[in-house]
């Protein structure tokens, strides 16, 4: 099984980044000794790293306790990265139109290598709504937004992704589950969208619509996370998506991902654990 491997840097910088990642990954805001235990570092090394990170806004004290959580800076960096995808801001009017039409949360996810990245979300008018976190990452096969992209990739891409996952045994859903998922996604080629049941709203589905480039491959997807299907509205919703695709076709260079120059297997990210295929 391959693991993430990056070049060595000097130990002081490495400790600071390790401490930052530990704070970022923690289920509860950790203290100096928690971090030290986890990383095998002395209390003074961890304390020095936290002081440097706090001064730069990367971590902050949790409720004035000797515990730490992420500061403002990592979130700003995240936002800056999301805004680098031209489709993010360009899609907003279309997402708003869909949110207004359905009253539900509408999200835009982009393809990033073999991952799906939530770039944008617009909330509808309903009191009870689906709150999506921007910057959320998952493998393409993990959830509806990614699967709506996966359904519109080439066979060669799908084979590439299968190889990537197979190299990381814990991520591979298994031959049978992968084949079953591919069969299920084939239906989307005819309808132009995916509908998946909502566990909290029996009888209703959320829908995922691919956003395709001039080659027909999905570069992103729009997801409507509410009881919108079956509703008879689907034709109107797809028409909004079609207008976004027309905007992309008119100027395809503008909408190329900022990471398109990297081979997908070069993009290695740690994603939260979740059930691979429903």
């Amino acid at each position, binding site marked *: 099984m391959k693991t993430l491997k*990056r*070049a*060595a*840097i*000097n130990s*002081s*910088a490495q400790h*600071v*980044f390790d401490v*930052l*990642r530990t*704070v*970022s*990954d*923690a*289920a*509860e805001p950790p203290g100096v000794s928690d971090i030290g235990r986890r990383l095998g570092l002395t209390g003074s090394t961890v304390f*020095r790293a936290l*002081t*440097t*990170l706090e*001064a*730069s*806004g*990367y971590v902050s004290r949790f409720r004035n306790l000797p515990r730490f*959580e*992420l500061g*403002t*800076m*990592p*979130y*700003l*960096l*995240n*936002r*800056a*990265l999301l*805004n*680098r995808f031209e489709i993010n*801001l360009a899609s*907003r009017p279309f997402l*708003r139109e869909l*949110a*207004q039409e359905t009253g539900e949360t509408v999200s835009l996810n982009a393809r*990033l*290598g073999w991952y799906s*990245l939530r770039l944008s979300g*617009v*909330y509808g008018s309903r009191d009870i709504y689906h709150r999506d*976190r*921007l*910057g959320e*990452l998952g493998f393409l096969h993990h959830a509806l937004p990614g699967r709506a992209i996966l359904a519109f990739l080439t066979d060669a891409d799908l084979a590439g992704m299968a190889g990537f996952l197979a190299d990381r045994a814990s991520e591979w859903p298994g031959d049978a589950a992968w084949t079953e998922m591919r069969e299920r996604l084939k239906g989307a080629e005819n309808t132009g969208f995916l509908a998946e049941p909502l566990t909290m709203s029996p009888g209703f589905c959320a829908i995922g619509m691919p956003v395709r480039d001039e080659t027909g491959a999905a570069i992103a997807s729009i997801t409507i996370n509410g009881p919108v299907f079956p509703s008879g509205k689907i034709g109107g919703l797809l028409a909004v998506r079609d207008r976004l695709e027309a905007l992309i076709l008119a100027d395809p260079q503008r909408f190329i991902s*900022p990471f398109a*120059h990297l081979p997908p297997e070069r*993009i*290695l*990210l*740690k994603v*939260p654990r979740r059930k691979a295929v429903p």
Partner: protein
Amino acid sequence: MDQINHAVLENREQNKAMARILTVLSSFASDRPEFGISELSQHLGMTKNMVYRAIKTLVEQDYVMRDPTGQRFQLGFRVLELQNVTSPEPTFRTLCAPAMQQIHELTGETVSLTVRALDYSVFIDGIETRKPGVWRLQIGALRPLHANSTGHVFLAFAGDGAVTDYVARHGNEAASAGEAMDAAAMVQDIAIIRQRGYATSVRAGMLPMVSLAFPIWDAEHNLHGVISVGGPKGRFEPALDGLLPRIIGIVETLCQRTRLYSANAAGSEITL
């Protein structure tokens, strides 16, 4: 003893080097997509060699990467790992707080943060001066948009026709409440604000006050809110020429960050 001193000095140097690496990474938290080494060096006041070494470390960690031309640097995908679902995202207030503190420390005067609520401006945060002659901050207080320069900033950047529509909606109502609205003067003031990019105003009275009001921009050329700073005319006005460029610099740096978020009609992305 020499060994101990050497270790202390080495630690201090390592901490400084690490702080520089984080400062270089923080430069990418803006609406500018990419930087060259020289630009960063100029922007941060570091030597090119320092910037290059910091960038090298950040590239090794995938937090920064070369752009497709190979000449410039952009954010790397690995910053996406730095998020925690249990941590709160920054709010508009927390984003603005450091800039408000800087403006307060620079001027010594009262600084306030305001957002628009329909046809009113609402104070949501502020720092009062400790000097005599305080411009009182009332968090939650509503002011009609025509009543002060902060409101004029909201109208100035609300699009063509916003002022005409506002006067049509509220002209009679304001007059009857004893707050005469001089529509022509307001239009003139708004034209100046649009041209200058911020508002200045003098309020007459027993203690004449001078204030500045700056728009805080979002990702889609809309306003999140307005930051104002003001104080007694006799005290604040003489210092303004020297202070203004520095206040503008602080606000521009803040806007590089607030421009990462949208404040749209369907609900601001960012919590107040």
